[in-house]
């Protein structure tokens, strides 16, 4: 009975003031294990594992010391699976009415899921645009995070928590890029 009550409680979407400190706790847990919280460096590790170091010196590094981070990544996939199968919220995502309206104007219909199936459902594989958007978006994420030396976890969470000016510069860049994409490029793309 008590367990079900706790589960029902966890299944509700978490408010920001519970979520933020929980994310910080993940960072602290990794720090306590003698590591640091940064997800994007895994892309470099995977490139090295695939043999990129044979041609490009940037991928010649002690990637075996990064295996722990790949395990963390595997855990994140499993965590997503667990959350969506056994801990999913009872209702649809509560998105602000203004965002629903703005997206509607771009012909993106709000479906109450985590990400719009119109853009990230398997159906997109039938069109060229459906392939280009995820690949191009991923490309920018991969290139940008390595150029900037980190992503949201390494800079916005770990770096800002340690009061690093470089991270503040990077995070400012993250937001400028996000605003440009959302307000200038979205109307052209969608």
């Amino acid at each position: 009975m008590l367990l079900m009550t706790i589960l029902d409680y966890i299944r509700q979407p978490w408010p920001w003031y519970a979520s933020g400190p929980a994310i910080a706790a993940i960072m602290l847990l990794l720090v306590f294990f003698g590591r640091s919280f940064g997800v994007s460096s895994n892309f470099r590790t995977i490139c090295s594992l695939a043999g990129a170091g044979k041609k490009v010196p940037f991928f010649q590094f002690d990637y075996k010391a990064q295996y722990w981070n790949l395990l963390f990544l595997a855990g994140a996939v499993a965590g997503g699976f667990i959350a969506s199968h056994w801990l999913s919220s009872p209702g649809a995502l509560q998105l602000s009415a203004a965002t629903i309206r703005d997206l509607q104007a771009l012909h993106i219909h709000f479906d109450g899921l985590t990400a719009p199936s119109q853009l990230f459902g398997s159906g997109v594989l039938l069109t060229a645009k459906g392939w280009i958007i995820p690949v191009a978006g991923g490309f920018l994420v991969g290139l940008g995070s390595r150029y900037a030396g980190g992503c949201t976890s390494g800079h916005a969470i770990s770096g800002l928590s340690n009061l690093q000016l470089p991270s503040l510069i990077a995070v400012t860049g993250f937001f400028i890029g996000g605003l440009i994409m959302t307000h200038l490029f979205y109307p052209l793309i969608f």
Partner: protein
Amino acid sequence: MIKSIRYILTGILFGIIMSKSEAVSWYRIQEMFRFQSFHMYGIIGSAVITGIITIFLIKRYGLKDINGTTITFQDKALQWKRYFTGGIIFGLGWALTGACPGPIFVLLGQGFPVMLLVIAGALLGTYTYGVIKDRLPH
């Protein structure tokens, strides 16, 4: 073996937190970049404030990690061009996919196989950086 399990468990916890906070949601990222909700700002802000306070305390009291080593934090070298330019490129991708690297993998687990394309793109982007790195201003 036990060491492997601790990272997998931390990752699982991360995946659950990111899912339940809805920080992995493409819609929430759009809401954030349109300034139409406080939710994402609240998450990032409260995470950073928690981080600042705890890291200050870790340094102040010279706390040790699980191996008994005093915890230290590396300072990042101060460069402008790489952080700013790289940051903007990352931001463009963040808003287009609605996911940063952590959420890309969490969403894959949630049942969005298209994230495999995003991962393929990210690996290609990372590889490209490795190739053109010396020609980019840092």
